[in-house]
């Protein structure tokens, strides 16, 4: 018998602090696997966000630099321009990227900075206790929208990946999920592809990952995975949103 699956080398032997069934930890593993497969661990720099994944630097065996809330893309821009041979990825949540860091992300994408952004969308502000985020679905209850989000009071959920896909600088935008084995395999391919595009100096790439948040959705982890499939993907359809290279 030979070992076919084990903890990736880039993932340190440290237990995750995330809640039971959280999508963050799955995404961390996928990133570590992608880095291992491409063999870029010694020249990759990651940028953890503010939010649940704020101490992601404890888990990866690569260089990491913490950015202020929402400024991941701005910091990544600086790093990539100073160290163009490094692979820079910014790991940001929906509150971090689509609310506080909207300007930085939008203009980094518009300039076509050669960086990779991993956008974890769980439809709430996770770390602070489940407040409404820009991506909260209509009718979804959160601590700041107890009766459910309404379009009149709170506006519609923001489709930030689609917004960024309209910009000329973005070469690759895809939305994935980590709620089932098939979706996890797809998400891993997307992350690897985004890194490869960056290695080929093609421009801005973004992978949005719909991630379950059982604690703040007040569901069991298995129910949360089902909810992603049944409700969340109706609002945020999975698939490639933009891939300039695929067309030639």
């Amino acid at each position, binding site marked *: 018998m030979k070992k076919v699956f084990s903890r990736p080398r880039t993932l340190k032997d440290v237990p995750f602090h995330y809640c039971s069934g959280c999508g963050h930890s799955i995404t961390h593993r996928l990133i570590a696997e992608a880095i291992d497969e491409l063999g870029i661990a010694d020249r990759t720099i990651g940028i953890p966000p503010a939010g649940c994944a704020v101490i992601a630097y404890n888990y990866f065996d690569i260089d990491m630099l913490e950015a202020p809330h929402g400024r991941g893309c701005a910091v990544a821009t600086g790093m990539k321009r100073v160290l163009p041979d490094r692979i820079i990825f910014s790991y940001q949540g929906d509150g971090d990227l689509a609310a506080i860091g909207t300007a930085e992300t939008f203009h980094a994408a518009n300039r076509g900075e050669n960086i990779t952004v991993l956008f974890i969308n769980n439809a709430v502000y996770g770390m602070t206790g489940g407040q409404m985020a820009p991506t909260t679905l209509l009718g979804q209850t959160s601590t700041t929208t107890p009766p459910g989000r309404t379009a009149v009071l709170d506006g519609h959920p923001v489709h930030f990946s689609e917004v960024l896909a309209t910009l000329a600088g973005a070469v690759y935008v895809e939305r994935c999920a980590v709620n089932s*084995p098939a979706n996890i395999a797809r998400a891993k391919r997307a992350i690897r592809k985004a890194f490869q595009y960056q290695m080929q100096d093609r421009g801005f790439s973004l992978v949005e990952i719909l991630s379950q948040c059982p604690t703040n959705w007040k569901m069991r982890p298995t129910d949360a995975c089902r909810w992603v499939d049944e409700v969340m993907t109706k609002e945020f359809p999975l698939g490639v949103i933009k891939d300039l290279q695929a067309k030639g």
Partner: protein
Amino acid sequence: MGKEALFFFSFPRRERPRVLKGFIEINRELCKECLLCVEACKRDNIVPSTDLNAKGYHPVRFTADGRCNGCALCATVCPEAAIEVWRE
């Protein structure tokens, strides 16, 4: 007879498991009882348990009845990367 063979022949002919193709090892201290692996396993080889680990969760248990084929779906969905898979 080897250990695996003894195990194999301990079942009545009809209920004999398929030949052992895969095996998984669950790190009990990392398990947080999210039960995603229980859902992912197509052969119901992973079951919840009532044991406790140091964090206070009930870690899942692998039932080595010879039906595991080492497909690694459980390890793919495991958020804690607590499962290692071996295959023939």
